[in-house]
């Protein structure tokens, strides 16, 4: 009997570990993109603001991927004959979109909205990690429900001033807990019951 319980316990533990492993969540997995685009270079070295490319992050549910036009704004002048950029030029020439591999992929029954998170003081790096240090973007977090809900239960732990949203170097403890609690009040962040209601994310 004891053996059964122990075995069951071990099996459950193994199950939870497998379920959270990056094998299943895709965490830390760098993806091969059609263009060898480096966020490290564009964000970290050049200091381009996130919103230059992800233009609708403050207005709509998706942060949106930039149209080829956005790439060409610079690259019609810079590195305009680099072989690395041939797929971009080809896309622009042939009016054929670039097909990027999705890195952060939520299940279809989850309705995540970027704009409201930005409005409530959740910074990019809170979920996406140090994008400015990633040559190829990978998924920093599991994107599992337990991870979402951890913040939805206690949002004051993960918020920052509006001015720091796009700051990649921001750390949660740059503000004291009291300051963050005050911030949550200022942002009128809804309470835990509301934020963990099913229909907040699922429709």
């Amino acid at each position, binding site marked *: 009997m004891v053996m059964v319980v122990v075995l069951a316990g071990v099996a459950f533990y193994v199950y939870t570990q497998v379920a959270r492993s990056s094998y299943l969540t895709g965490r830390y997995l760098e993806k091969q993109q059609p263009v060898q685009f480096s966020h490290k270079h564009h964000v970290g070295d050049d200091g381009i603001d996130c919103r230059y490319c992800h233009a609708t992050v403050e207005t709509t549910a998706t942060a*949106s991927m930039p149209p080829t036009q956005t790439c060409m704004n610079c690259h019609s002048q810079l590195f305009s004959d680099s072989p690395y950029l041939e797929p971009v030029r080809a896309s622009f020439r042939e009016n054929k*979109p670039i097909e990027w591999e999705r890195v952060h992929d939520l299940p279809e029954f989850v309705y995540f909205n970027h704009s409201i998170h930005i409005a409530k003081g959740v910074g990019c790096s809170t979920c996406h990690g140090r994008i400015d240090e990633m040559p190829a973007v990978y998924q920093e977090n599991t994107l599992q429900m337990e991870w979402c809900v951890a913040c939805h239960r206690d949002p004051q732990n993960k918020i920052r001033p509006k001015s720091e949203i796009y700051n990649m170097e921001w750390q949660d403890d740059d503000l004291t807990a009291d300051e963050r609690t005050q911030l949550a009040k200022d942002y009128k962040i809804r309470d835990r019951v509301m934020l963990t209601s099913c229909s907040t994310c*699922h429709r």
Partner: protein
Amino acid sequence: MPSQDSKKNFALLRDRILGRSGKDYWRSLEEFVDAPEFEEFVKREYPDHAETWDDSLSRRNFIKVMGASLALAGLSGCVIQPPEKIVPYVSQPEGTLPGRPLFFATSYSIGGVAMGLLAKSYDGRPIKIEGNPEHPGSRGATDVRAQASLLDMYDPDRSQHVQFRAEPRSWADFQTAFRAAIDQDRPNGGAGIRFLTETITSPTLIDQFKRLQAELPQAKWIQYEPINNDNALAGAKMAFGSTAQPIYHFEKAERILSLDDDVFSGFNVAYLKDYAAGKAWSPEKTDINRLYVVETTSTLTGAKADHRIAVKPSQLTEVAKAVAAKIGVGGATSTYTDNGKWIDAMTRDLMANKGKSLVVAGRTASPVVHALAHAMNNALGSVGQTVTYAEPFSPGTDRAQTDQLRDLVTDIENGLVKTLVIMGGNPAYNTPNDLRLDFNRLNTKVPLRVHLGSHYDETADICHWHVPEKHYLESWADGRAYDGTVTMTQPLIDPLYDSYSKYELVQLCFKENFDKKDYDIVRAFWQTQNVSAPAAVATTAAAANTARPTAASPANNASSNNANSAPASGTTAAGRGSQANTAGSAPAATSANAATAFEDRWRKYVHDGFVGNSAATAKTVTANSAFLSQPQPSQPAANGDLEILILPDPNVYDGRFANNGWMQELPKPLNKVTWDNVGLVSPKTAEKLGLNQSNRAEEYVGGDHGIAFINTKGTNQFSDTVDLTYQGSVIKNVPMWITPGQPDDTITIFLGYGRKRAGAIGNDIGYNVYDVRPSTALDFGTGSVKKTGEQVTISSTQIHFNMEGRDILRSWDLEAYNADTKMGEQEDMYPKSLYPYEQHQETYEHHHRWGMTVDLNNCVGCNACVIACQSENNIPVVGREQVDRHRMMHWLRIDAYFGGPDINQPNGPHFQPILCQQCEQAPCEVVCPVHATVHSAEGLNDMVYNRCVGTRYCSNNCPYKVRRFNFLLYQDWDTPQYKLMRNPEVSIRSRGVMEKCTYCTQRIAAARIEAEKAGLSKVPDGEIVTACQAACPTNVFTFGDMNDPESQVAKIKKNDPRDYKVLNELNTQPRTTYLAELRNQNKEMPDYLNPETPVGENLSQSPNTL
């Protein structure tokens, strides 16, 4: 179909009963035991599911496979997400934001009446139809047809390329061949060319034909539609000497008499809005309008009547004369003697309200009835008040459409027609059987036949060339609304297939400039028009405006909502231009800036969806009753003992929606039949003919305060089929349906079914009435039926019409209610609860508290909300067989209950939309083993599809029966067209998942997010409009935050004493509450039901007639 197992079970049951109870008992139960399905239908929500297994996998094998997969079941949550691509634009069009829907004004025409719409475009795909709040014919609401028209566009059965004798060809090939044929006829002035269309009111198309007339003076344009206005126009001619189109103003009418006019099923939601404005009751407005209906079958309008009589179709003319005589129309005499008291009291009431009463006549009524209605309106002083007149908007109305068709057929038979161009419509299917444009008639006589249509249908089949027609969401067009307002149609999407519009086809006939796109044609026409200074603005437009504040407040809400999310609704679908210039109508244009002035004007037309102030000028006409002395056209020869009435089907109409799954599965408003057409017969006549007698129909139940409800319990469960003879032709196997309220000895049959080439959905369903419908008796005539001895099961979603004595639907007498508005007060069950509840209440206090009221007084049962809900929430179509098993998926259903103590003289049916009641103490939640249905902080009863494992306990425990279960994979995951159509804001549910109404939680979330981004702590009232609320033409639904004392819903719940909870005694504390219906009875009427009389006593004396 019951399986072997269930048969065996029932055989056992039968033996047991036989053994115990002796012969008498057996007899009474015989029907019951022979009809296992019936028993199951009443007793269980989802009959049969235990006994049937639909997949090829047997039950035993399934369990085996399940056993194996159970071992891995724990891992089912850890599926690796399949790789996905993100495909951005190459260069993003200005004004578009990915994932943010845009609304574009467009319009939809049926029967020559255009309704202004706003189509919701999600990343370039139209996914939902809403009404255009600014448009006078829509005022923010839509009808059921406009809602369902979306599915037509995505119909995978649409034809996809030009065809010649069913072989694919290119448009260029067609152009060459078609123009060659036209050119050949050009020397003769086009004498051999005939255009056949449906009713056309498009100013551009009319102009094109007019200009074509100059080039081809001998060519003819015929308009024919099986459901047309011939009688009304002929009646106007009789009364006025010239044709005129009446435009009604129901909002001003306090007393309305309908002579068989089913206004509420018409194309025009403006009338419904106006009627609802007069019918609306509030503590401030306790006076409501009164509707008298004389009709020949049961209709939506009759259902709403305060007093109603049913007469045979042939009697209607005499009834109208009798009414006219009383009202004082000179020369009116009648042979009709029944219902004298009824007519007396009714006419007295009309005359007492001179100038505020209105008489309307129906489409199937004879021209004399229409003429009499005009004369009566004249005598009642209604002209200029409740009714105005206008020139008909369609040309050629001086010749009836049926006569136009007859001329065409004569020309064809004389060999005069060389080229027949059929644009829209389906004449090979829907022309009268003696004027049928079928293969035999056309084959040798017409050398070139061209068909423009959305489907390769019956007509395409008999034509040489078939050209796919654009859907209205793919094309530029214009039309006229009910009051003549010019209405624009703009495309939302590039045509899905190689398709063309009427304009482009007609343009091909011109010598020059023949190759033009519809955009250029429509725009060029409006460039020539100077509408910026319209001729005298019609009174109608003004009237529509005055009605707005009372009638259309939710519509205003809708507009503000739409305005929020539609910043660029002026951009054309082609992506040209950015923001529309809303600079008002063009100022007097100088020649220098005429082009820009037009550009401004054009942009405004397209942005608004209509041309402002373009309603028809009122036409002054005077009715005289000289027509009464004219000889009447003889009625069709009597050749049968029954009268047969032919009506368009409430859902598929004349057959054009036959391939629309939403329309086929939509329960018909009065009898909830789906996927079929039936023949309606009265209870008495059914008994006489021995139809549907296997279950006893009658059962009464008393209600509160003067209303009893009749239950046609299971009578129609098995429909006898008959062979029906009409005017000498026979339709085989017409299933009969007993309908209380149907006049005796009259059978109503419905057009639009029995199609052979509708598509995968609409083929071979029901019987075809067109095959027996002669041009001499299009609407009614005599006939007979012969029982075939066979029975069929009709899929109806409401078999059990019994409220079992509970307080579910309230329909009260107005006067009694006004005298005592406290009569409906319900006891608050809340303190009786055993379980502490304060914690939840405290949560609700601090959040939005979403709630809804449903005003039964205004509900006319038109079904627009049901389809709106289906469209918004990606609700699948399940098919006839599944409906038979009661597995339909509509989240919102409309229940119908007949009222009154006599099944032969019922009132109603009364309608009650039932959707999830969002109980605060929800019985479904406590039984869910996996917490798939739980409450949100805002009090929504959330349904979490991804958690649901399909135990169906929740549905079992739901007292309102609003939960729907995906027994099979109903969603079509594979057809690419349907993928385009779905609302991406709503999860698409798969097999084994429970679903239900969520108050459109996606709309709530969208509004909440926008409000919070704007820094508001509350969503402003009116920002959230649920799909049903937006579609409803009569303001039945009100939705909002009950915690906000200024919100409309809170005010209604607080101030309107009619507010009640359904099944209050269960203490579910529903957030959805209902407002009782009020019947404004006239005490002098012989059919007045005294609310003081205890209903139960009435009932015990009522003769057992069936």
